């Protein structure tokens, strides 16, 4: 059996999953979600909202975050902004102090206890009907909240997520992440239509305060408190919606090392939550697409990402070493020049390559759908190129690190 045969089952699953997303994206609930509009909601019908911004050493970005929140198009008397200084050791407190007199802003200082404790401190300080979270390195569009509110259509909807993209991507790595985030917009929008979201990301996710309090507030959640809360909501039978046009921009890691650290934390948190306390959701028919498709596929994708990487590495190394071995002793003037002719006959089409290209092509379609649905500005070319050539080489690094951490129970600090 050739090594590439190992890739076929995973490619089949990937194509099936992408097809499922595509079909669901075109189904009635997703179409209805796209057509949902904030128009018609009078000011009196709007709920009171508190946006909590947990801050730990965010002096460089917290002012811009605050400015973007104050620019939200929402009745001033129904929107409060709560900054929670989680024991910062930099100038965060003094930057916050500049907004202390603003009637919409409240500031809480506390001992450092982690993001979940900061969120809980903010929740305890408000009586707003809806609470939102915004990481202190993120910024929102003025109409983002207006897009979020109509998603709380039924009492069963306990949370609503926004559409994240990268704030002003400059480097190749940032463009790669932007393409990935746009992909995320498409699949979050799709998963929400079949209530299968299992993360309510830090940037601009909203919750019903009474539900969060009834569930006991945020927990440490293996350093992924947003995922843990979403899984707890799903386990308790609540719905999580998505507002694809509620645009929020976040800052992303600018080096491979910091990106790998961030993603290791996410994936380790996912594995620990889903294979620990929330294992009962996997394969649970009562949870529909989430239990039967989304969570199993997410787990398989961790393993397949590692396996396909090693397969690719083996194939690449094997062919390179063979080529070097064969060419040893032959003058470079011959070995370095291409030989042969351009002819359809030599078109290198094989089953593995064409299937891989198909999955990549569908990924491109989702990235473009994500951009279009969210109306996110900016160009995609660099994102698509970097996503194609970088993502497959970098993502296995955090997948392997996270899997190892999970297997050996290794604990890391937030930033290591």
């Amino acid at each position, binding site marked *: 059996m050739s090594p590439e045969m190992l890739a076929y089952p995973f490619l*089949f699953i990937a*194509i*099936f*999953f992408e*097809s*499922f997303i*595509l*079909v*669901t994206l075109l*189904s*009635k*609930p997703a179409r209805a979600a796209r057509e949902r509009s904030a128009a018609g909601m009078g000011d009196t019908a709007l709920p009171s909202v508190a946006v909590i911004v947990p801050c730990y050493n965010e002096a460089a970005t917290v002012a811009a975050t605050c400015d973007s929140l104050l620019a939200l198009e929402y009745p001033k008397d129904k929107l409060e902004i709560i900054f929670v200084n989680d024991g910062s050791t930099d100038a965060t407190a003094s930057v916050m102090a500049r907004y202390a007199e603003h009637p919409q802003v409240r500031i809480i200082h506390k001992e450092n206890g982690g993001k979940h404790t900061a969120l809980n401190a903010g929740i305890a300080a408000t009586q707003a009907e809806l609470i939102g979270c915004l990481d202190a390195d993120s910024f929102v569009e003025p109409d983002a909240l207006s897009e979020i509110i109509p998603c709380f259509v039924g009492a069963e909807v306990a949370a609503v997520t926004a559409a994240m993209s990268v704030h002003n991507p400059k480097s190749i790595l940032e463009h790669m992440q932007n393409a990935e985030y746009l992909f995320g917009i498409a699949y979050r929008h799709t998963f929400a239509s*079949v209530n299968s979201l299992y993360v309510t990301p830090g940037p601009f996710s909203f919750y019903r305060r009474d539900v969060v309090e009834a569930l006991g507030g945020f927990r440490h959640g293996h350093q992924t408190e947003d995922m843990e809360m979403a899984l707890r909501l799903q386990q308790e039978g609540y719905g999580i919606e998505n507002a694809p046009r509620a645009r929020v921009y976040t800052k992303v890691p600018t080096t491979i090392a910091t990106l790998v650290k961030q993603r290791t934390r996410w994936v380790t948190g996912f594995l620990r939550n889903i294979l620990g306390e929330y294992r009962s959701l996997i394969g649970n028919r009562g949870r*529909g*697409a989430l239990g*039967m*498709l989304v969570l199993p596929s997410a787990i398989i994708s961790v393993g397949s990402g590692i396996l396909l990487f090693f397969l690719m590495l083996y194939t690449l190394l094997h062919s390179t070493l*063979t080529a070097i*071995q*064969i*060419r*040893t*002793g*032959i*003058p470079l003037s*011959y070995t370095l020049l291409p*030989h*042969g002719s351009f002819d359809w*006959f*030599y*078109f290198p*089409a*094989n*089953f593995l390559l*064409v*299937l891989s290209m*198909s999955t990549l092509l569908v990924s491109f379609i989702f990235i473009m759908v994500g951009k279009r649905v969210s109306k996110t500005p900016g160009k995609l070319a660099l994102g698509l190129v970097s996503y194609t050539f970088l993502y497959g080489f970098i993502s296995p690094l955090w997948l392997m690190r996270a899997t190892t951490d999970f297997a050996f129970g290794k604990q890391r600090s937030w930033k290591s």
Partner: protein
Amino acid sequence: MSLVTRNALIALGITIALTGTVAYAINYLNQARVTELSAIEDQLALDTLSLDTQFSLLEAAPCESAASSTTLTDKLADLGNRLSYTEDQFGSDNPQVIRLKEQYSLLEIRDYLITKQLAKACHTKPMIVLYFYSNGTDCSDCDKAGYALSYLRNTYPTLRVYSFDYNLDLGALQTLIAITKVKDSLPAFVIDGKTSYGFTSLTDLEKQFPKGSLPLTTATSTPKP
């Protein structure tokens, strides 16, 4: 039926249809390659017969058919490249590949014989290499030897290399092996009538050629399949 079940079934249908279409398209492309190879081989068989006939007709001036021989050899080289690529795609144990290689080997032997006849009639001395290889595990140096011969053929256009899969079950080839007394220690080379075994380096291979036998002139060559 729930929306999720319905969508999952549609997605499964799309997946099966897509993978089936890809498998069909790849198979169709491969069959098109085989068809093209067969067509080239048929044409070459015709050309070979034509050259044979031309050679007989021009008994008084046999060297008139030398140009046709060169064209034929060039076509044979192109066929060899395509066959080699097809063998990589299909695998060397594929029945269609084996059939094409048998036909190719026959054409090579015919071209080899015509070249020798022309050389005798025209009093020329072309440098001919008979190269015997194997795709099995019994020849770890065959790929290196094949590449070195490709380099020599490219560098010395007058060199004629005829490559044969030693294990091919073909009567004419087995007769050639018997005549040249090549043993199953591969790779094996018959250069200027002398047999040698094994491949160590390009330099050592070049030493097996008679001095001055590799002039850098007009191209006439046949590749390894």
